[in-house]
């Protein structure tokens, strides 16, 4: 007799549709005379939105993760890139993405849809270079990249903000030049508001996972937060997150669990090995689940301290009753909002990340932590060893496992499973 009731998520189907449409629309954009751009999941997508409603993005990381999920195609991509003389240890998202260009194959069928321009931002060593190479592989696609690496949010100042906003203004002029389109500030303002709304709403959803039993497990969260990485600035995503928030609230109210026998709450870190999400299902055999991670919470979700001192969703400008009337204000709001992104802070010091992780572990009542030493992403694995030390010091049992989010050749399921066995055995859990 399981401890808790479970139910499938009602909004699941819709999430799948939004994702499917997104990749279809990008592929078909040209047929409708629209524009295609590519860039990172973190790039300021709200800005090209000002070029019109027929402008479709393809964000590299989630696209590459979809490739990784298809092990056979992924291996072909990775090897195509190695043949070109690129190192095996580079970002595996980037390599899957390049492979898809080199093989001229879109993972959702058909040839790889060539973008009209690259719209990227830069914070890790690979961000700008990823698309520099991609553009070269595509025979030279115009590229604009905004440097956002100007220190932790706690130290933000006018000079830093001006730097980012200045680049944004140049970017808009550049967009007008290369697309020959008139830029519409109203659309920009709307997109900025939607981005703030969707990213704040996602945090609200994650917040609900403080409940015991947890209404969501991280494996399902991966498939839901991904929408934010596709087009966080779109009303479709913002509205969907609002709808989802209501459903999850209702689950909590009715005590609906993600895992029927929840008795151990874990927290993970960095991207999962996309080809091996079954590792998360394996946990359930022990009545354990991952309630999330700074990665799922903070890559898209925007957070801030709540009056009661706990961590919660960041208040949007509109909630604060702030008026956004012109381009410059919109860009400043967008810049400042994004510079506060939790998942960015550790680029300046692991301290910032440890603080947030410990906070999550405490507020979400975590029993143990699994750190993925992810060879596929030096950006998010940055400082992870120091994080480990801080978490252990804070009194949490920590297990580490090496793997790769996008290169299955670097992930050994059996080794990791036996490690999980030992770790959970240590937390006095036996298979159910």
């Amino acid at each position, binding site marked *: 007799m399981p401890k808790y009731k479970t139910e499938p998520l009602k909004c699941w189907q819709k999430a799948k549709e939004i994702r499917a449409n997104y990749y279809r629309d990008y592929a078909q954009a040209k047929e409708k005379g629209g524009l295609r751009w590519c860039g990172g999941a973190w790039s300021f997508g709200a800005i090209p939105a000002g070029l019109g409603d027929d402008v479709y993005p393809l964000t590299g990381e989630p696209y590459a993760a979809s490739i990784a999920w298809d092990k056979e195609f992924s291996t072909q991509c990775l*090897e195509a890139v*190695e*043949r070109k003389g690129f190192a095996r240890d580079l970002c595996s998202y980037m390599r899957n993405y390049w492979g898809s260009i080199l093989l001229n194959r879109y993972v959702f069928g058909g040839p790889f849809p060539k973008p009209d321009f690259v719209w990227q931002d830069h914070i890790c060593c690979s961000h700008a270079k990823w698309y520099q190479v991609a553009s070269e592989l595509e025979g030279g696609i115009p590229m604009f990249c905004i440097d956002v690496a100007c220190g932790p949010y706690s130290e933000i100042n006018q000079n830093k903000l001006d730097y980012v906003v200045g680049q944004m203004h140049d970017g808009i002029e550049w967009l007008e030049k290369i697309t020959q389109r008139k830029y519409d500030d109203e659309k920009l303002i709307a997109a900025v508001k939607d981005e703030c709304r969707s990213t704040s709403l996602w945090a609200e959803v994650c917040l609900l996972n403080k409940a015991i039993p947890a209404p969501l497990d991280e494996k399902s969260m991966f498939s839901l937060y991904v929408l934010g990485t596709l087009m966080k600035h779109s009303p479709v995503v913002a509205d969907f997150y609002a709808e989802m928030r209501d459903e999850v609230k209702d689950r909590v109210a009715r005590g609906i669990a993600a895992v029927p026998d929840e008795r151990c709450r874990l927290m993970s870190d960095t991207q999962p090995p996309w080809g091996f999400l079954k590792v998360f299902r394996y946990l359930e055999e022990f009545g354990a689940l991952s309630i999330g991670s700074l990665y799922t919470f903070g890559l898209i979700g925007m957070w801030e301290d709540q009056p009661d001192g706990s961590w919660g969703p960041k208040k949007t400008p509109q909630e604060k009753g702030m008026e956004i009337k012109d381009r410059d204000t919109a860009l400043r709001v967008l810049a400042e909002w994004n510079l506060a992104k939790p998942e960015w802070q550790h680029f300046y010091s692991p301290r910032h990340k440890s603080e947030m992780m410990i906070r999550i572990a405490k507020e979400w009542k975590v029993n143990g932590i699994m750190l993925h030493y992810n060879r596929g992403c030096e950006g998010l694995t940055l400082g992870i060893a120091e994080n480990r030390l801080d978490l252990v010091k804070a009194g949490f049992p920590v297990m580490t496992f090496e793997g790769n989010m996008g290169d299955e050749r670097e992930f*050994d399921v*059996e080794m990791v499973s036996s490690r999980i066995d030992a770790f959970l055995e240590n937390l006095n859990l036996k298979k159910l």
Partner: protein
Amino acid sequence: MSREFWRWKEYNWKAPDLDWRSAAGITAGIDVGSVSSQAVILTDGKIFAYSSQRTGSDSPESAQRAMNRALDGTGMSLENIQFVVGTGYGRVNVPFAQKAITEIACHARGANFMYGPTVRTILDMGGQDCKAIRCDEKGKVTSFLMNDKCAAGTGRGMEVFADLLSIPIEEIGDLSFTVEEEPPPVSCTCVVFAKSEALRLLRRGWAKNKVVAAYCAAMAHRVVTLLERTGVEKEFAITGGIGKNRGVVERIEKELKVKAMAPSWDTQIAGALGAALFARALLEKSRSVN
């Protein structure tokens, strides 16, 4: 250590129909490799005799043994050899060599002799490294690539494996083709972790030959990715010990969709042969000078 399955047998060979006494130029090449050493003796540019011996921990002595074994029963002695070139890991430790040249240059030169001037791409799978060499019609190296800091896909990998499964290394190739259907390659070609991988598969009830096939496939694949980085221009030839392992060779051919040229000589002597050919050229050069 009981029986060493990983060792290639030691052997020598002598041309039945050549009389060295009437030869104008006698040169030799010694390839002191990490695992085995070869000596090749040329009389007027023709292969007169050769030998293959295991390399000991003392390379001058290994070079000497290889040379002696080649001279064995020929009536020729070291003094009769006018120019010697050393190559391989121990190239600088060949006491009786006048010059040292790397195995890369020597394999290209040797392959050019063995396979003729049409050979353009050479794969040499030595004990500890794996080289993809491109050369011109004269056997001159135009570019080359060696495996990085991981020895997966080197001859030694196969030796460790042979030892583990206690299968004589000469038999691995044939055994790997006794499977009904080709298994998926093992995921890990790391020399040592191939062990745990193999044990894992045997525990799952795989037959030995199936495991061998999976390992040969993995190694072939590993090598092909290296080859593809230099690009494979025809004709294509394989030298070194692995050249004798059809389990790997045929799988490489299959993946590359390119047939390797049939060797007219023992592929393991390619390096020493190239050295001997350089020795001959150097001998003539020295003569033309004075």
